[in-house]
């Protein structure tokens, strides 16, 4: 049988192989922006001015770039969190709760541990943040292997618990004699403001290049280092082999003698730790304190980031920067074109729909369904409720 592939040149085959993983995310983006443009046209706006403004706001100049990178920093880590769990066959919707628990733990260390030098205090705070998220992530893992509770359900519920718990931690107290939370700052509480005290300077993540980039902190470096580390764990370590085998075929993993339950719990813990770290660098590098306005929405963005990045670490990095630009540039877009920045949320939601429903993209572009390994992440998502 003559395979048409054989007639292609080596170069073009190489090109196809290189480009293939980019095809469906690219089509998802094109579609999302096209629908966004139609929406703008319907409301009488000019999409070209809007998108130009968006591009300017995202990458036009150092200020814009700083904003994009600042926004992207937690996205990289939450994206890695969702992607790592995905490799183990788990859908981590709980990055948001893990983000909050990590934040709370690191801020507690940053505020309460006093009189230690920065080279101890800062790593301790980072570690606490990772551990807080890891612990929160491990819970759904344990529930899954112990009682078969589906992680999608348990992580969603744990998000609520984390959100309310962290609010209580910093609660200012009420006029009817309600006790303030253990982490609430007395001075702020006196004015009825719920927040923690400012973290000590020894726990602060310094700015990366204060003279060049505005408020971009060392958290970006931590996130950038996490990318190859996660890649290495997945692709080169024995543990990563177990993680991927459990994700690809749990029965085969069990049959091969792998400790499936342990792998699931540990994978969820690592995923949780990464999300916790996202919240940690956000607080230690940017806000310097924790307040309930801190919603952990970066945890939800992590899902889009991971899926758009095809759950590969490098893909996560690229899509995190892209999403960072999308949000970073939204304000500029509104200023330039008068198009409300909420339209960006529409575009972003469309991106999520497109990457989460690969069949939709295929129907739109009349692509043939490929049953290759590259598509497993998506098809697993589409059928993920069975397992």
């Amino acid at each position: 049988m003559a395979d048409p592939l054989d007639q292609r040149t080596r170069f073009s085959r190489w090109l196809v192989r290189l480009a293939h993983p980019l095809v469906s995310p690219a089509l998802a983006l094109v579609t999302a922006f096209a629908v966004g443009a139609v929406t703008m046209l319907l409301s009488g706006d000019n999409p070209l001015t809007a998108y130009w403004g968006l591009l300017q706001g995202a990458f036009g100049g150092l200020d814009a770039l700083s904003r994009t990178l600042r926004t992207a920093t937690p996205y990289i880590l939450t994206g890695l969190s969702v992607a790592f769990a995905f490799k183990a066959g788990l859908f981590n919707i709980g990055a948001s709760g893990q983000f909050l628990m990590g934040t709370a733990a690191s801020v507690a260390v940053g505020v309460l541990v006093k009189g230690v030098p920065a080279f101890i205090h800062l790593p301790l705070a980072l570690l606490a943040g990772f551990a807080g998220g890891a612990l929160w992530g491990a819970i759904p893992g344990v529930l899954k292997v112990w009682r078969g509770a589906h992680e999608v359900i348990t992580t969603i519920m744990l998000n609520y618990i984390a959100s309310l718990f962290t609010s209580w931690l910093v609660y200012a107290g009420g006029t009817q004699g309600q006790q303030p939370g253990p982490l609430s700052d007395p001075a702020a509480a006196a004015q009825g403001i719920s927040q923690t005290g400012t973290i000590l300077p020894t726990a602060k993540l310094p700015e990366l290049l204060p003279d060049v980039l505005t408020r971009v902190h060392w958290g970006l470096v931590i996130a950038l280092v996490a990318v190859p580390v996660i890649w290495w764990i997945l692709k080169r370590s024995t543990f990563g082999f177990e993680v991927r085998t459990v994700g690809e075929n749990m029965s085969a993993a069990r049959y091969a003698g792998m400790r499936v339950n342990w792998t699931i719990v540990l994978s969820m813990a690592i995923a949780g730790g990464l999300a916790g770290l996202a919240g940690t660098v956000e607080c230690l590098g940017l806000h310097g304190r924790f307040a309930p306005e801190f919603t952990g929405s970066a945890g939800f963005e992590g899902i889009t980031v991971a899926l758009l990045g095809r759950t590969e670490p490098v893909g996560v990095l690229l899509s995190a920067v892209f999403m960072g630009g999308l949000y970073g540039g939204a304000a500029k877009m509104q200023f330039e074109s008068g198009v409300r920045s909420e339209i960006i949320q529409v575009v972003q939601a469309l991106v999520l729909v497109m990457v989460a429903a690969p069949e939709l993209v295929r129907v739109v572009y009349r692509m043939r369904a490929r049953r290759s390994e590259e598509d497993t992440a998506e098809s697993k998502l589409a059928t993920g409720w069975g397992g």
Partner: protein
Amino acid sequence: MTDIVLEARHITKAFPGVVANDDVSLSLHRGEILALLGENGAGKSTLMNVVYGLYRADQGEILIEGEPVQLSSPRDAIRLGIGMVHQHFQLVQPMTVTENILLGSEITLGRTPFLDFEAGRQRVRELSVRYGLSVNPDDVIEHIPVGVQQRVEILKALYRQARILILDEPTAVLTPQEIQDLFRVMRELARGGHSIIFITHKLREVLEVAHRIVAMRQGRVVGESLPESSTQATLAEMMVGRKVILQVPKGPAHADQVVLEVRDLSMSATRGGVALKDVSLEVHAGEILGVAGVQGNGQTELVEAITGLRHVQSGAISMNGSNVTAWSPRQRSSMGMAYIPEDRHRFGMVGSYSVAENLVLNTYHLEPYSRRGVRDDAAIRDHAEQLVQAFDIRTPTVDTAAGSLSGGNQQKLVVARELGREVSLLVASQPTRGVDVGSIEFIHRQIVAQRDRGIAVLLVSAELDEILTLSDRIAVLYEGEIIATVEASQATREQLGLLMAGVRAPLNA
């Protein structure tokens, strides 16, 4: 007026990367039992799915009673009098026989939307008597044996007035006696003017029941013959395209000390499974113990208990004298237990992984494949190169995804992984299911070679021929119990057939 009831002309059907049917023509006469013979992937099922309206052919046409027809769904096929009994039954388990048969073409009370169950039940009874397909219309499907479920499937087709019946591998789930029953019904139907296409890869059955035999290979019709002028050997050659050895040569066993001992093993049934009751068996070094039985009589449970994938409730499993009942699969594996699982896609391999990765699926954590938690890809690939050579795995490279290999080569990959290291016990569960004849021969040779090297082999198979060919002793499993163990040299097909049906043979048999 022709007596050709169904004709397929020049059917071509391609799927991405493979031409499943390449200019296939076939005709079926009134009252004929036509055997469609071929290995997995030969294109039999594709052709039948085209005839049944599940696939649309790229080219070619289908004629029924000489008239070209358009089949765009099974509904069309049913309307035109075609019925199909799939290999996996399409029955609703908690419903009764009558409800299943009526489903989709119900009889109503006059013009009301209410079911006329009495009329339906009456109709089922009539059909059942007329064709000798005895069923009780009020039995619930999940409570009746597989052989009876199959009768319900056939009745379902007859109720829809099928004149042409397609039976896809109908004997795979039956005992030898149930197979005889089915053949009787098939002959009865043919005499009454029905026409039957019988899909199978079992040569013995073809010779027994078919009026005419058509063989397919690689999407084409490669031969046609009559049972009177065929033997198993000529049919096998027609099907495979070269001479095949149906029975691997095998000398007498030299059984040595006990390697695997199972004592009074019991466990209760899990959902959809079978309970094991006081199962005891011994496998000696240098012998093959075959476990015969119809599918679903506790084979899966027994094998998973022995390999450590399932916890047992009582009883003991020991290997080389050590009690391993509480050991993990990994501990048992490192003790020298090799395991060829019954479903390679689910258990045996990870389709998206490379051949090399699959070959270390259970040893990846050991040196030299990994050191201090870091994988050594060079060592993994070296190992794979060696095994690919030694076990004749046909793959472009060791980096090829295992899922893209043929079924036979995937199974060879599993065999290579399990036997490519030092072991003392081999547990092989359905080792040749869905595998081409050439690979079956290779795998059988490997199993016998392992026995001759002094390895204890536990062979679990639902194929009686495989059990009879390879085993030195045969244990028969029926509803989770071992109801007899016999010397293979003294066992007869009839005796085993009775045992597989749960009839305990008298001691003097």
